[in-house]
């Protein structure tokens, strides 16, 4: 009965909130800001808008716009070098999880003597970062409220840095930045956020009542709005709710852990470059079905939040309704659901299963039901 809960100290949510980003840095005492983003964000015009907002508040701005998906160490190091040359005293991350994760590390490395690889693991970072503001353009990874960054090392392995300093000073949610997301990205990132809420709530290792409150509220927002944003990407109210749900799910999982869905998704991303959200979407329904015998009570509790207003005769009926609702959401998401259609080869299935069972043990440990390599392989085969 002992846990810690960390939170970003300030969250701003408003359509058009990006216009206030300059003031945010002003309040933090930063005058020279490195804006970290990717080429897609530049094309959408968001980079120029953010730059204008920063300059209007008197900030000098440099732009690093070369973040790649599953960012490599080289990307983080190049951005850090640019920040140092520019003498940046603040960092703005603008984009999806990759840009936000990169921005966090840059803010930490600017004044650090430590090489990036010395930060891998938990609480290895020393010293203070420069002021950091994060603005997500997907809903989403929740990266704007977590103290973890995931990057890809030169050997193509995913490395995670968990460090309290990675938590930003301010998270800014501007739903206008998400209106133009393509449907498949909306679906993948939205389901990813739902997985965060569900796995936090059923975490066997660090489930706690604070994360529970955020996860349940997040699940209602996400569950009630995912179909709406898929039907109409310009629905500002629904886009706002998705961003808010994603943020709350992020606060929940980073304080309670994710579990087997993320575990089974990792090799799909690392080996076959399936985007993180899509990889989660692929395995979420079968893993939840697999977990049902051990997680019936939790899934029944979540049914009340995913399906507000519906009543169930008993726990098993509620839990079954929850699992079916998840299966239906994944089905309706429009995302490809077969591994074979995503160029995953059958020979990789046992290798990936072993990798998860052994290499990412910590995530299986948080799963409500234990999983052997054989069981993991069977789940992969069921969606092959």
């Amino acid at each position: 009965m002992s846990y810690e809960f960390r939170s970003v100290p300030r969250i701003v949510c408003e359509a058009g909130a990006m216009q206030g980003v300059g003031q945010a840095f002003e309040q933090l005492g930063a005058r020279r800001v490195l804006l970290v983003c990717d080429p897609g964000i530049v094309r959408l015009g968001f980079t120029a808008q953010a730059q204008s907002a920063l300059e209007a508040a008197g900030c000098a701005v440099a732009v690093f716009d070369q973040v790649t998906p599953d960012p490599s160490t080289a990307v983080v190091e190049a951005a850090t070098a640019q920040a140092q040359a520019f003498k940046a005293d603040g960092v703005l991350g603008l984009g999806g999880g990759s840009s936000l994760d990169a921005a966090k590390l840059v803010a930490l490395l600017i004044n650090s003597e430590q090489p990036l690889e010395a930060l891998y693991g938990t609480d290895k970072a020393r010293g203070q970062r420069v002021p950091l503001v994060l603005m997500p353009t997907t809903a989403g990874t929740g990266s704007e409220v977590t103290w973890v960054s995931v990057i890809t090392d030169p050997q193509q392995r995913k490395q995670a840095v968990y460090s309290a300093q990675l938590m930003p000073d301010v998270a800014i949610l501007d739903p206008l930045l998400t209106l133009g997301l393509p449907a498949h990205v909306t679906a993948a990132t939205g389901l990813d956020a739902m997985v965060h809420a569900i796995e936090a709530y059923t975490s066997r290792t660090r489930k706690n009542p604070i994360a529970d409150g955020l996860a349940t509220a997040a699940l209602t927002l996400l569950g009630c709005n995912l179909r709406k944003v898929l039907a109409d990407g310009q629905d500002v109210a629904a886009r706002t709710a998705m961003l808010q749900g994603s943020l709350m799910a992020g606060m929940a999982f980073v304080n309670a852990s994710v579990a087997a869905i993320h575990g089974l998704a990792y090799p799909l991303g690392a080996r076959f470059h399936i985007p993180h959200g899509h990889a989660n979407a692929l395995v979420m329904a079968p893993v939840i079905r697999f977990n049902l015998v051990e997680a019936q009570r939790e899934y029944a509790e979540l049914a009340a939040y995913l399906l507000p207003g519906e009543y169930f005769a008993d726990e098993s009926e509620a839990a079954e309704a929850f699992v079916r609702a998840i299966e239906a959401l994944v089905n309706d998401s429009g995302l490809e659901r077969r591994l074979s259609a995503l160029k995953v080869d059958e020979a990789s299935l046992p290798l990936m299963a072993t990798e998860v069972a052994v290499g990412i043990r910590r995530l299986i440990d948080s799963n409500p039901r234990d999983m052997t390599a054989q069981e993991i392989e069977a789940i992969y085969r069921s969606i092959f």
Partner: protein
Amino acid sequence: MTIMSTFTFETTPRVICEVDGALRLGALCRELNAERVLLVSDPGLHRAGLLDAPLQALRDSGLQVTLYSDVQADPPAASVQEAVDAARACRAQAVIGLGGGSSLDTAKLVALLCGQEQRLEDIYGINLAKGPRLPLIQVPTTAGTGSEVTAVAIVTTPSHEKKGVVSPLLYPDIALLDARLTVGLPPAVSAMTGIDAMVHAIEAYTSAHKKNVLSDGLAVQALKLLAANMDRVLAEPGDLSARSDMLVGSMLAGMAFANAPVAAVHALAYPLGGHFHVPHGLSNALVLVPVLNFNRPAAQALYAQLAAAVLPGQRFASDAEACDAFIGFMTELVARMPFAQRLSDVGVTVEDLDRLTTDALKVERLLINNPRPVTRDDIHGIYASVL
């Protein structure tokens, strides 16, 4: 369901919930780079011996600890200044507040006034304080005020006015919830502070202006924890699990109302504290039920939603029925609490009602958050109904 889509949410960045966590204060101070610390508390806790173990643990970890244990209820400005002087005298590098709301409020101001040269009388109001403040750890011993996660400190001025300092600088670096520190609370105090916390959650959830999805989610979870554990801590004061849940519930309610401010219950409670020295939690409890009944026409849907938090698993045919169930639950809960139930029990007479009403009307900043507009006659009627 109307959801406020535009909001700003601020909170304490780090919460530790751990039985006997107070014995780790030394390590936490070190993390905040402090070797010399001031512990701010009150004489009652000192006498009760509650400070002994944390003080010893701080000393055992090699820190220089100075104790200021003269915090007074509704802290007068002079008392805050005395604590500031104590911090300066020991060249404190960090401040620990350990106690009820008064100790935590004092600790906030000590950290602020020692971190940056400024006078207390110059920073009453919103965002007038300048940083940096000293590192600050808040350890509540009631569940509670939620002060460990709010950005307000209330001071009693020499002219007996209550004034507040409001600034995000007042959020501590760490809120430490140690249920062990609350097992010795007398039943009446557990009850009053617990109802106070529930009022925070309820009024945050029905707040007319700044209610948002985050404050809603936290308020609902707070109410769930508080409703499920209130009777348990009265029946089994040593139940550490129930005590922990009350502390977490109180803190979550604090996070909620820090961002979605409280309303008429608090506005009507304040004059009872001011004129009759009724403890804050009891003042709230006395007026809670009549205010809920008064608000019903405007807040029925919201109270109906809260029914699910206090009566989990129950199904209701309509909002009206769920709202009834919620108000009924709160009415019965307050009625079985071991404290005064009527204003006359705390010395209020019918002649006092006009003065109380006049003063409650002055708390405009809170009344505007009430889901139903409140007139002078309404306030008078509410007081009269619980005389």
